[in-house]
């Protein structure tokens, strides 16, 4: 099966899309030379594996309370110690990967398409549509993201779903910006003009030709944004506005360990480390991807 590598590495691409995909593939081949990005990729793969095999990795039931074994320091039995209800912190962190992934995925799944569509429509249609949509984007960007999310959660009520909705409402504007900028470049291209001459409808052009071209930069943007989403979700969890107990959400776990921080440091420390590592993984990967995608 070398046909698709041939397709990608050909010297004479037949469409702009093939050329661009080929370009990306060549960059992908160069990607392993960036050690930091590879570390990031490794972290993300590990995160996915841990989430998938959580029951096998965890040493205990993350929800099982054992009041006789409260606040035990890290040991061979409890790698990261136990919390104030005697639950095994290591197992809770392992299961917490699932919560984190669910939040991140839900936000991305809602935000990506919304941002893409608003941006692509704004950039392609131009005129008053562009002005209106971009003005809206500016207003949202003028707001501090966390504060706005807080206000929304306060109105909607605490909980995982509401936290996701609140983060999504505050997260789409940068995506729209990126998509619009890309679209503005793409719509100038001759092949778009050719498609228009063939009588394609505007929506078809946006959906079939403009949107796919915006995807690479949006993927980079998304990877870089993941860390931000994780941090905001953790912040909401920390304030008691995100996932509710007893769900093992890392931010809420830090909050639970706050009282004992001076005496039982491990309760708050390990969930925080988990957040750091995962956020760093996404940042390293996104940073590497950006280097690869940008010519600079």
């Amino acid at each position, binding site marked *: 099966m070398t046909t698709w590598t041939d397709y990608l590495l050909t010297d004479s691409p037949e469409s702009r899309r093939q050329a661009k995909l080929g370009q990306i593939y060549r960059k992908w081949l160069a990607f392993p030379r960036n050690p930091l990005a590879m570390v990031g990729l490794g972290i993300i793969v590990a995160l996915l594996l841990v989430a998938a095999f959580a029951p096998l990795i965890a040493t205990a039931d993350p929800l099982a309370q054992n009041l006789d074994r409260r606040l035990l320091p890290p040991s061979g039995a409890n790698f990261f110690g136990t919390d104030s209800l005697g639950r095994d912190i290591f197992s809770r962190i392992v299961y917490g990967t699932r919560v984190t992934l669910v939040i991140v995925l839900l936000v991305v799944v809602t935000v990506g398409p919304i941002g893409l569509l608003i941006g692509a429509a704004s950039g392609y249609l131009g005129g008053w549509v562009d002005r209106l949509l971009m003005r809206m984007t500016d*207003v949202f960007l003028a707001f501090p993201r966390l504060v706005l999310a807080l206000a929304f959660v306060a109105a909607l009520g605490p909980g995982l779903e509401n936290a996701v909705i609140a983060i999504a409402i505050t997260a789409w504007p940068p995506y729209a910006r990126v998509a619009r900028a890309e679209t503005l470049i793409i719509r100038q291209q001759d092949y778009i003009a050719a498609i228009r001459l063939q009588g394609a409808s505007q929506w078809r052009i946006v959906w079939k030709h403009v949107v796919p071209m915006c995807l690479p930069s949006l993927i980079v943007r998304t990877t870089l944004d993941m860390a931000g989403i994780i941090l905001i979700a953790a*912040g909401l969890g920390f304030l008691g506005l995100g996932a509710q107990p007893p769900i093992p959400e890392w931010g809420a776990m830090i909050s639970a360990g706050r009282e004992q921080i001076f005496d039982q440091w491990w309760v708050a420390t390990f969930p*925080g480390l988990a957040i750091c590592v995962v956020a760093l993984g996404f940042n390293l990967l996104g940073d590497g991807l950006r280097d690869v995608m940008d010519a600079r």
Partner: protein
Amino acid sequence: MTSVAQSQSPVRRRSWGETAGRWAKIASRELSTVAITIFGLLLITFFIARVIPIDPVLAVVGDNARPETYEAARIELGLDKPLWQQFAVYVGKVFTGDLGRSVLTSNTVVDDIKRVFPATLELATLGTLIGCVLGIPLGVLAAVYQGRWPDQVARVIGLFGYSIPVFWLGLMGLLLFYAKLGWVGGPGRAGVAFQDLITPITGILVIDAAIEGDWEAFRDAWSHLILPSAVLGILSVAYISRMTRSFMITELQQQYVIAARVKGLSEFRVVWRHAMHNAFVPLVTVIAVSYMHLLEGSVLTETIFAWPGLGRYLTHSLLNADMNAVLGGTLVIGAVFIAVNLLSDILGRLVDPRTR
């Protein structure tokens, strides 16, 4: 680029009238942007207020009120009117400085915010200062040694800054520097012995203590201030250093940098006097944005450090469903965002002779 017309009048300098006219045009454009943004801000807070599942009427009359009382209260609160009228009333109130009363403190929200805001300002300002003092040199270093190890180190530091949850960093800071090492004061703005000792003048404790000449109180306030500011500062180091790096890389490739080297200037002077001077123009906006991030970051940091600022006021009200206070606080933070934005735009123009 040079046209014949240009070479015939070799000196082009704007007259005073032209400059004033240009500034008037810029000002009117900026002001209309600000007006629209403020309008959007109000629309969002109003929308949030309307979608809350809590019935504001019940909050006034209580759960067991008779239907007639309920109806009367509803009319008194203006909830029977169409939405746009309610919005108009809301906007009118905001512009006359009426953000309602906080259920929690039973003060007006405006009074509350006036009380707590200086503490947040103090924190965010020092945090930004720390961010600049560390972040700008780090970014410049990374740009000068682009692709070599100082650049990689700066990159990793930057990415770490983007990856650490601020509230956790605060906790770790308290654990290490307060509990274990005892280098700094604990949570709160002042030690027990110094509580309410200083009469507020500016509301910013370190400045007030300095004005009164109470150096012990100053030292105490400083020891409480430094850790939360440093925690915020680390966040902005990441952002400021990365942006500085990217601006400096652009500037260092410019021809005038080579010209400066040809003149025989030292590399230090070439980098800091010539390239940095140019990179500073876009950096003004970055510093403003980072200041806004820190105002935002203070929401979580203040919770950790029991810092009596706007952030803690906001979260406190939030957890007690004190919506007037929440929306008031949100609105004020939004307004500060807009103001800082505007200020950075103007400052950026003043720093650059081409747009002056």
